[in-house]
């Protein structure tokens, strides 16, 4: 009977393609909107994704997220280093600066100051130049997307100069980093340079990056650091979620995207569900005929569920493929807004669950009609 279910489903090509594309469109809507939401949330923690060396991030105890931090005195670094179980600890600066180009145009940029001697926190992927070039006077490394923002359509040219808070800076390298939440250029420099570029403040150190000694429980070490320094110490993985949770709890982004994802789900469900439901209803007479000829309800149930499974699987696959293609194409076209966004496996799973739910509900609704169908309907 699987053969019959398949043939009934695909017999009318137009209807069949209509159902499949209904499901595919629903999947696309859900997967794409959910992926953009996830991508935006990941962007809030971009620096944590890129700086992979430390196990623990230490920040002021009132720090709300990676961008909203109270600068600390550099003495704090030595306090942290003094905690038993800390293998190494280095300082890091992160802040917003004003970059003025030679033609007078200016823009905000994210400045990251990495430890002068160890270079911990440096970008992982260089496009041009090398990390060691940061030792040159006034050297900065800028990210590729930021460079394109500052010099749209121009070839990469190392040695270009600009002013950061009225101090000279020279581009010595181009790197690739995770897209930040704000689409600002990301500039890396040595910590000592960063303190010169940063606006004048008594304290400038944003974070202390800590590596735990081998075999030390990181969570216990965090608690120890907090106890002994009065600072906030968070494991890298937790710090990633710490930021995301802040944005989820304190901004309208999740609500807006939640609504969009929900709309995607509803529209997808309406299109896919209704098309599949109508397909079964239109075939009621045929199901009635099969019932009269001796097909049991359980076999009809299996046939409809198989049809739902086929439609759901094919539609879902097409929808996910379209969503992936969307991000690939926009990524390849250099679209900064969607840079670094992709369909995570978790979104694929959630979308599969949503699509499964849609076709299951649609098939259950139509199955009910088939199950209560009097076989005598064939004579009407």
């Amino acid at each position, binding site marked *: *009977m699987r*053969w*019959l279910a398949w*043939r*009934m*489903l*695909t*017999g*009318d090509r137009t209807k069949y393609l209509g159902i499949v594309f209904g499901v595919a469109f629903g999947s696309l809507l859900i997967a794409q909107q959910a992926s953009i939401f996830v991508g935006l949330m990941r962007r809030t923690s971009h620096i944590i994704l890129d700086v992979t060396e430390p196990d623990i991030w230490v920040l002021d105890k009132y720090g709300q997220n990676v961008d909203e931090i109270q600068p600390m005195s550099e003495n704090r670094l030595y306090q942290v280093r003094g905690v038993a179980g800390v293998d190494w600890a280095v300082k890091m600066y992160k802040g917003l600066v004003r970059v003025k180009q030679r033609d007078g145009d200016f823009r905000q940029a994210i400045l990251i100051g990495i430890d002068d001697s160890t270079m911990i926190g440096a970008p992982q992927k260089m496009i041009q130049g090398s990390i060691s070039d940061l030792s040159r006077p006034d050297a900065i490394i800028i990210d590729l997307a930021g460079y394109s923002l500052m010099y749209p359509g121009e070839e990469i040219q190392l040695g270009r100069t600009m002013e950061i808070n009225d101090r000279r800076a020279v581009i010595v390298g181009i790197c690739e980093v995770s897209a930040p939440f704000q689409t600002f250029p990301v500039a890396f420099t040595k910590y000592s340079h960063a303190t010169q570029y940063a606006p004048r403040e008594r304290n400038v150190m944003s974070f202390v990056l800590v590596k735990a000694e081998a075999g030390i429980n990181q969570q216990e070490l965090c608690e120890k650091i907090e106890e002994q320094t009065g600072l906030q110490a968070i494991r890298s993985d937790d710090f990633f979620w710490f930021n995301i949770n802040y944005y989820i709890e304190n901004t309208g982004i999740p609500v807006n995207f939640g609504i969009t994802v929900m709309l995607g789900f509803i529209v997808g469900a309406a299109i896919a569900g209704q098309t599949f439901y109508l397909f079964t209803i239109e075939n009621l*007479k*045929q199901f009635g*005929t*099969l019932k*009269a*000829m*001796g*097909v*049991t309800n359980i076999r009809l149930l299996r046939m409809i569920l198989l049809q739902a499974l086929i439609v759901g699987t094919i539609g879902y696959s097409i929808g996910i493929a379209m969503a992936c293609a969307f991000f690939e194409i926009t990524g390849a076209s250099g679209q900064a807004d969607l840079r670094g966004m992709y369909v995570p496996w978790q979104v694929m799973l959630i979308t599969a669950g949503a699509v499964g739910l849609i076709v299951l509900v649609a098939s259950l609704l139509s199955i009910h009609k088939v199950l209560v169908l*009097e*076989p*005598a309907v*064939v*004579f009407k």
Partner: protein
Amino acid sequence: MSVELAKIDSKQIAVNNAAVRCQKLTKEFRAGETIVRALRGVDVEIAYGEMTLLVGPSGCGKTTLISIIAGLLDPTDGEVEVLGENRRELTGTRLVKFRQKNIGFVFQQYNLLPALDVVENVSIPLIIGGVSQSDAKMRAAEVLKKVSLEDKINARVSQLSGGQQQRVAIARALVHDPRLMVCDEPTAALDAASGHNIMELLREVSIDQDRVVIVVTHDNRVFDFGDRVIEMADGVVENVTTNQRSRNNGGSNTKVKQT
């Protein structure tokens, strides 16, 4: 072909080898507060090896009667015995299996599956019965030959004329060799010539001594084909008429008047 009819003033006719036996059969339908009595005490017997026509005006209960006989509806009261089985004892899966094995259906609108080609449509009852797809198609092709559609085996049903589609439906009803064939207005959607051919075909089918064919029809052009014509009116059998035909030459020619 000469046809002679024998009118019998009886509302019931007893037959020796009854395939279907109904006694005081009633069927009521509820529509809100209203109760519609579709059958009001039907007594009828239908013999093996005969083609029986159920005739009468719309709403007289003939479709309800064949629905009950075919196991598609349950009676409200009365006794029904079909192919030796008491209908009341046939319930649930047993009833479904009984229909699957013993009954072939022919519908007014053919009810063929448009997604399938001719041979696939005909093979459905066998596939439902658990026969493999390839074996079912082979058997279906043989039956299609019997209804002179061997050249349309792979055609889509939408490519066939009404008469051809009804022949496919008859082949589908025959393919699993059922003992009871139930046909609902098989000629209603056809022109006179096609209707005639279909009734000829059904009469040939009914010659099998282990089979009974019941045809519900309005079409008085085909009344002559029935061995027995049961006239219904207002939920009861009003008249039973027999047409006797000789069986020794295939059952399609000589008819003898009986009173």
